[in-house]
């Protein structure tokens, strides 16, 4: 088994390393082609990211991304493509903020209520796609795209002062959540405050791993993703599985907005960040649906997002970072695929070698077994 372990290490590290190298190289090509220094932008970004306040920003942003990506990844593990995380978290954050702002409960309970509401709303919105798929066979790709847009309208309607919202200056908000409903952060002094929700996000990752890899339910879910037909034959109720995983995915999506809502803005307003769901897709892909991979992916994208701010001050276009994100995703998936193929080939080779050796060694006994069998 020793040999396999070494291979595995190569396989595990080969993909990402190859990818980053290729992506950086390609970005440099773009930079050179447009007459820029091919290395200075990286130097600037790294230097900028060395500051502790930027690091706090990166970590906070990564936590948000992480939750969005986990939500996407749960679907991916089942071969479900939940493009709707975006709509799910926006609707969930808005309703949760409304509820949170309109009740007063003792600290932990208040937070808990907000979280439960967010998860329920997220699950509900994803559940619509789940039900449409299981009962009517509507592709979740299409239905979640539609539901994203519908969520936009629903939020726009609910937040009207005539409905549940309030107007504050030129902004519409849900009203402020009282302090009992805030999630305490980790104060790092001048560097700022790390969202307390970072811990929750990490816990979600652990839970994700545990459930998927160590429980019967997780096994069923992965089996369904690997081969729906085999899973059904093995006793999985595929429809229920689709609905369940859609609900879970939606519930996690519902948490996506919580780090910001509970740790920073304490209200849902028109400028609440949108589009996190799509970044989540990218990150889930980067992290190959693995909780650690996703964490790294989230940090990487958050780094590019935040550190690229410095490019503007130094005469570079911030878009360099966006280009890099695209190239990284492309390079990562291509190199993963290349490495995966290499791995499979190696394995097949090994199986062949080992069997040949065994056959050669056992040629005599082989004949004997056959005789026995036919006797």
């Amino acid at each position: 088994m020793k040999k396999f372990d070494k291979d595995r290490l190569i396989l595990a590290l080969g993909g990402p390393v190859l990818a980053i190298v290729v992506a950086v190289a390609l970005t440099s090509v773009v930079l050179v082609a447009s007459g820029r220094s091919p290395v200075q932008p990286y130097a600037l970004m790294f230097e900028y990211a060395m500051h502790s306040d930027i690091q706090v920003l990166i970590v906070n942003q990564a936590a948000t991304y992480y939750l969005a990506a986990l939500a996407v990844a749960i679907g991916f593990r089942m071969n479900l493509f939940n493009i709707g995380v975006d709509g799910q978290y926006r609707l969930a954050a808005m309703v949760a903020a409304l509820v949170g702002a309109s009740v007063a409960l003792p600290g932990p309970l208040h937070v808990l209520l907000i979280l439960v509401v967010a998860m329920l709303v997220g699950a509900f919105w994803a559940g619509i796609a789940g039900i449409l798929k299981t009962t009517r066979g509507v592709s979740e790709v299409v239905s979640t795209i539609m539901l994203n847009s519908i969520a936009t309208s629903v939020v726009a309607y609910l937040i009207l002062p005539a409905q549940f919202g309030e107007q504050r200056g030129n902004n519409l908000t849900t009203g402020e959540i009282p302090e009992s409903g805030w999630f305490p952060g980790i104060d790092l002094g001048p560097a700022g405050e790390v969202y307390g929700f970072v811990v929750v996000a990490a816990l979600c990752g652990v839970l994700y791993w545990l459930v998927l890899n160590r429980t019967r339910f997780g096994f069923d879910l992965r089996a369904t993703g690997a081969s729906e037909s085999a899973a059904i034959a093995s006793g999985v109720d595929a429809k229920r599985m689709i609905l369940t995983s859609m609900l879970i995915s939606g519930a996690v999506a519902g948490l996506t907005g919580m780090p910001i809502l509970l740790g920073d803005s304490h209200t849902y307003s028109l400028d609440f960040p949108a589009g996190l769901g799509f970044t989540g897709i990218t990150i889930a892909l980067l992290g190959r649906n693995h909780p650690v991979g996703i964490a790294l992916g989230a940090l990487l994208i958050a780094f590019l997002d935040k550190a690229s701010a410095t490019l503007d001050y130094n005469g570079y276009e911030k878009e360099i970072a966006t280009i890099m994100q695209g190239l990284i995703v492309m390079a990562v998936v291509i190199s993963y695929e290349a490495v995966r193929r290499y791995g499979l080939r190696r394995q097949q080779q090994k199986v062949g070698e080992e069997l040949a050796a065994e056959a050669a060694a056992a040629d005599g006994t082989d004949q004997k077994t056959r005789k026995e069998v036919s006797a």
Partner: protein
Amino acid sequence: MSTVLTKPAAQQPKPTARRRLTLAEWMLVVAGILLLVSAVRLITGAHGITSVGQTSTALRLAVPIGLAALGGLWAERAGVINIGLEGMLILGTWFGAWAGVQWGPWTGVVVGILGGALGGLLHAIATVTFGVNHIVSGVAINILAVGATRYLSSFTFEEMEGGTSKQSPPIESITQITVPGLSDAMRDLNDKHWFLVSDVAGLVGGLVTNLSLLTILAVVMVPLSRWVLWNTGFGLRLRSCGENPLAAETLGVNVYKYKYIAVMISGGFAGLGGVFLAEVASNIYQEGQTGGRGYIGLAAMIFGNWMPGGLALGAGLFGYTDSLNLRGGGQNVHALLLLLAILLVLATAWATYRRKFLTAAVAAVSGLVLFVWYLSVDEVPSQFVTAAPYVATLLVLAMSAQRLRAPKAVGKSYRKGEGA
């Protein structure tokens, strides 16, 4: 006993599940819907729902979606999922405008198509040559396209007179034609608000008024795609790659080649859609102009059952509801509530007849809710008007999705010589 081969199949052949509605039946359906719409228009007085302007706006809004959907069709028929359509649309807008500003709109069209095709090429390299998951590659292309066009804009448009880093200078417009006489006649007829006649006049009028040449080109692409894909050897080979690439390979079809061609054509169509946005829908390139139309196009294609005619219908539905929304939405959408309620009543009757009582119950309840809603308000809040196209799509899909059928090998990675 020795002639089994000459006997008809020993087993009962599955009764053919693919009976299609004939042209006459389709026309009946269309006529039925027109009748209903006309009736609803007269009841509600929302004459806007079949006006000339409505149709003409719907057509213009449908074109980019339809072109994206055609792009999706070409790729998926060859077995490649193309969720990168959005990115290819973006490339189309940028390249189209970039060339259009400098060398005139028609050069813009060509370069825009090439720009989209470039995105397609990238997608093909990733998915066909490297076997990357199609969705992953598509998402990557979407990100790349955003980054690349922004980056490029700051070198090009920003330096041009009247341009900025987000916007190109105006592009000369493409000739628009209006069929003389017919257009006015239809408009007059439409204004009379007669039952059915005026509605048909509105439809026809919309199709012959203020037509950009590019619109005509785009519309022609639908039957042309249909013809090429289903009536030529090239199309047959291409489709075979989406149904069973291995079988195609065993007959000497170069599967890689056809997939490459298909995905590049797919990108080209999306590129054309982008050019349309930049040159006809408006006259500038503008960051964020595509606004998710690539995704909607994909939805329209699935809605249309991977068929050119169907996807045109899907794009038309989006265009129509979008245009309702933009043209004094509240009242029109209010009228549509009634239409929908009536349709749901019909669906209830049909489901009851087919003894699908659950479906019938769901349809009946939804119909009732809509009817009550219709009666209780005069105008639908604008927030919901905006949602109308998406809700409509969901509803139609929920009613018809089980009949949809994707190409069999779509989304599957295929390796030459690795067949069973």
